[in-house]
């Protein structure tokens, strides 16, 4: 098979995108087994099967579509299907008079009558459907699914292996990124004879000027791969994007074989949710002087010898292509760690920093390792608590001084002074490995408030508030959590033994002392 055809098998629209027990042609089988990246969930799965599942067990291998459930089952079918029953098709039935849930009902009936453990590859959504509408006689399974949703993984005879528990991205120090995607990209582009794609690429020399081949060459750059993984990580953090194995394969296919040059395929492709999210991170959307100048000058064809020289160097390395100024900006973004000619493109490096993500990752790590309490405290005092108070006092910033706004009663503002600080004890218990948020823990006076999730968007909001931004009620995004936290703080502050009252023309304090209220003006 030629390069183009082999590449095509990576697309999600290809016939090879869905795993079944059937074998494909030898070329494709070779590529598949070469590209296969063994994941932790697979190791766990094999461990479980090697230990022999007790009779009556059902093992649910659950995930999103395209996660690779069927692929794992397929790879181990030959070895384990004698002792276990495999079921790959939990999302449909084979009879016209039966729906998928009824098919599962029947499967579980058969399982009850058999003496083989059952292994089911199932989509989480399908599992919920079964929980809602499955037959009552399978109440035990339905209940187990309920417990699974709550976080249990072993419920009596029912065991769950969920892809969600094995995230493809990591924020841990030294491992920021995605092992899985990095390995996959490296395999796809490896210049080695074992790589069927590379072999096909070499055989096809007469076509090397074509776009697909140019893109392949660009993707072979290790630093480009790294930046792509990083960009994907940002998308994962900010847009809660799902990344199934199939979606990643398709993404890689689109990078190389999309309609345009790789840079545009990454940021301005129009296929699906992932592209949509990626387009929000398009470096062209950044407004800095250098980027704007470049785009304007290129559009007006103002001559720039340095750039012309760089362009020649670029084309010598990757191939001749005409690119719009915006595409060049994207190219500068992805190539910024590569040494190329006069390094014209590196002038823009600073303009591409994603500070908010780097901050987030940094604070996330601090929350998980808890190694540097001082730095952590700095974040709490200077960013989090400062923005929370600023938001709480947004209606009366001058009036309450360093107090906290509690309520307004017919034109009179009530406030209290409370100490808010980081709750280091609660921090130790509240953070698991989830990457899309970390839990912040606060203490108001001596009372802890329940740790609350901070996402990238939330962090961005707190920083914007500090910079003077005032979210309003139509600005619903993430303000909800902010309001909730402020509400909790106010609740504790309301119980304060000293209250302050502010009105045009007067401030009073009221102290609660031995069942007497002492009022004073100040």
């Amino acid at each position: 098979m030629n390069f183009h055809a082999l590449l095509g098998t990576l697309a999600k629209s290809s016939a090879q995108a869905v795993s079944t027990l059937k074998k494909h042609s030898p070329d494709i089988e070779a590529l598949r087994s070469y590209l296969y990246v063994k994941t932790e969930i697979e190791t766990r799965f094999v461990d479980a099967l090697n230990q022999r599942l007790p009779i009556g067990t059902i093992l649910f291998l659950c995930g999103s579509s395209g996660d690779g459930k069927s692929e794992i089952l397929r790879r181990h079918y030959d070895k384990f299907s004698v002792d276990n029953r495999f079921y790959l098709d939990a999302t449909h039935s084979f009879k016209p008079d039966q729906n998928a849930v009824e098919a599962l009902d029947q499967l579980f009936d058969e399982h009850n009558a058999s003496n083989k453990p059952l292994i089911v590859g199932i989509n989480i959504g399908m599992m919920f459907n079964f929980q809602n509408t499955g037959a009552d006689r399978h109440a035990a399974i339905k209940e187990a699914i309920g417990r699974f949703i709550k976080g249990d993984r072993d419920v009596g005879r029912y065991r769950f292996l969920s892809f969600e528990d094995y995230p493809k991205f990591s924020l841990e120090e030294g491992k920021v990124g995605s092992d899985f995607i990095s390995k996959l990209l490296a395999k796809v582009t490896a210049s080695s004879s074992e790589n069927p794609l590379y072999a096909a690429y070499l055989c096809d020399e007469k076509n090397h000027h074509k776009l697909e081949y140019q893109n392949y060459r660009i993707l072979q750059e290790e630093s480009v791969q790294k930046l792509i993984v990083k960009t994907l990580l940002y998308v994962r953090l900010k847009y809660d994007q799902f990344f199934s194995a199939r979606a990643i394969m398709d993404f890689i296919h689109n990078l190389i074989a999309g309609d345009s040059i790789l840079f545009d395929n990454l940021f301005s492709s129009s296929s699906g949710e992932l592209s949509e999210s990626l387009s929000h991170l398009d470096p062209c959307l950044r407004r800095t002087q250098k980027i704007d100048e470049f785009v304007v000058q290129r559009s007006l064809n103002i001559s720039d010898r340095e750039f012309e020289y760089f362009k020649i160097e670029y084309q010598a390395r990757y191939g001749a292509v005409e690119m719009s100024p915006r595409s060049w900006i994207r190219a500068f973004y992805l190539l910024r760690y590569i040494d190329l000619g006069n390094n014209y493109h590196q002038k823009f490096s600073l303009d591409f920093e994603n500070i908010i993500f780097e901050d987030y990752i940094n604070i996330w790590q601090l929350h998980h390792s808890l190694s540097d309490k001082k730095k952590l405290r700095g974040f709490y005092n200077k960013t989090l608590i400062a923005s929370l108070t600023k938001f709480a006092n947004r209606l009366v910033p001058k009036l309450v001084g360093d107090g906290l706004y509690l309520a307004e009663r017919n034109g009179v503002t009530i406030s209290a002074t409370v100490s808010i600080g980081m709750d280091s004890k609660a921090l130790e218990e509240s953070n698991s490995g989830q990457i899309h948020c970390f839990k912040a823990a606060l203490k108001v006076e001596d009372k802890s408030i329940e740790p609350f999730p901070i996402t990238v968007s939330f962090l961005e909001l707190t920083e914007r508030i500090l910079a003077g931004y005032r979210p309003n009620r139509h600005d619903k995004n993430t303000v909800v959590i902010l309001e909730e936290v402020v509400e909790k703080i106010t609740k504790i502050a309301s119980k304060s033994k000293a209250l302050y009252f502010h009105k045009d023309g007067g401030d009073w304090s009221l102290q609660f002392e031995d069942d007497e209220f002492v009022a004073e003006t100040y």
Partner: protein
Amino acid sequence: MSLKENLQAAASVEIKDRNFVNHFLTFRQQRGEKISDPDVMAVAGELLSIAWRKSLKKGTSLGKFTEASMTRLSKKIADEEFESVLQHMYFDDDAKGLFQVSPEFMLFKAGSASSGNTRHVGTVLGNMLLSRPEVAPVSSENMNFLEAELLDEFQSCVSELSPPDATEDYLPFMGEVFAEDLSLLCSYPGYMMQNLKAFVGLYNFLYSAQLAMNLHSWRTEPTSKPLYFIMDTERASSERTYVREALNALLGYVGDLFPVLSALEYLNQPDNKEATRFPLWKHFQYIEKLPDEEKYELHQGLKCFLESYRTTRGREPWGGELSTPEDVFKAIVSTATEIFSQARSSQLTVNRKVVASFETEVARHFIQNRKRGGRVLIMNQDYLLLLTNLAVGNKEKLQYQQLIEEFKRRGVWFDQQSQQALIEFYERVGNLERMSDSGDAVYVRKTI
């Protein structure tokens, strides 16, 4: 008072000169140009009083409470200047500040309805709470030590209430969710106080709309009838027939509300203050289940009523079939609509005004004119978030499909496109949780 007595009395009921509706309806014809919103505080006072089964003791009033509170506080504070600040904060300007403290104080507002529509909304919505379990009041969590004194003083003003239950639910399914939702709000006092206005407005509209749509299906118990909304940010493109036809169809039904309910008044002993009022469908179900002999008696009585109703309103005797009670019910309903649809009659004018007041008072926030796209029913983001929180209820989160079902229970329907747009909306708000890429594994969290 039983259904049977009401029906028996119908045979000899006196037909009044004027048509009137005293039950089941939250709005009347609009008089004058000014659109008056119901006084939400008064309605809320009424509702909370019934939900909590609490009312003010005889002889207590806001004035007396003010006096007692100020005496109590001045004993503790003894600072005249500050006391005048307190007086201003909590009791001046119709005690505006007091009502911001905690929902309990709203009991002072119960029964204070100054306008007709406030009273109607309060009575009809309150009615749905009568037959349902009592709700425990929860005080605001943000109360400081000063305000705690006020609440403590207030406790001596309240007594238990055992309200009469004189009207049966027309829409039991709606009553069910309404009571559920109010009791949920009661457990979040802060949220309740912020959202009372929206809550009353929402239910006033949903109740009225579902009442109108269920009016003609008196053969069966009412159910939530499809009423399609879109979000205010969505486009109402022409292929979305459900959305585009919703409002016109609804207004058609609303046109029959006043006529049919005014006829129903005669089946419920209009002159007897003690009588329990029953919905039309209950009358029919009751008759259908009777043994033949009794059925015959009531059947004849209803025929007498029909005849005198038609004669008094100057209609020809009924020409159609009347051999079963069902026929008579049909005849009564169509007589009612016939009376109100005579060209140039005062009844037609009255009914037009009633429909107009539905549009301007009840449905105002839910109708949007999309010019070429026609007028559509919309659900804006504030109402939508409130509705979402109510639908999720006591749970922390709800599977998306179940949420849509909960919306339907409340009479709010969304077509496929809107359901998609809703997901995007929740994503933006940040209360959506996806457990997988499958549409079945999407959860929506509460935002309170």
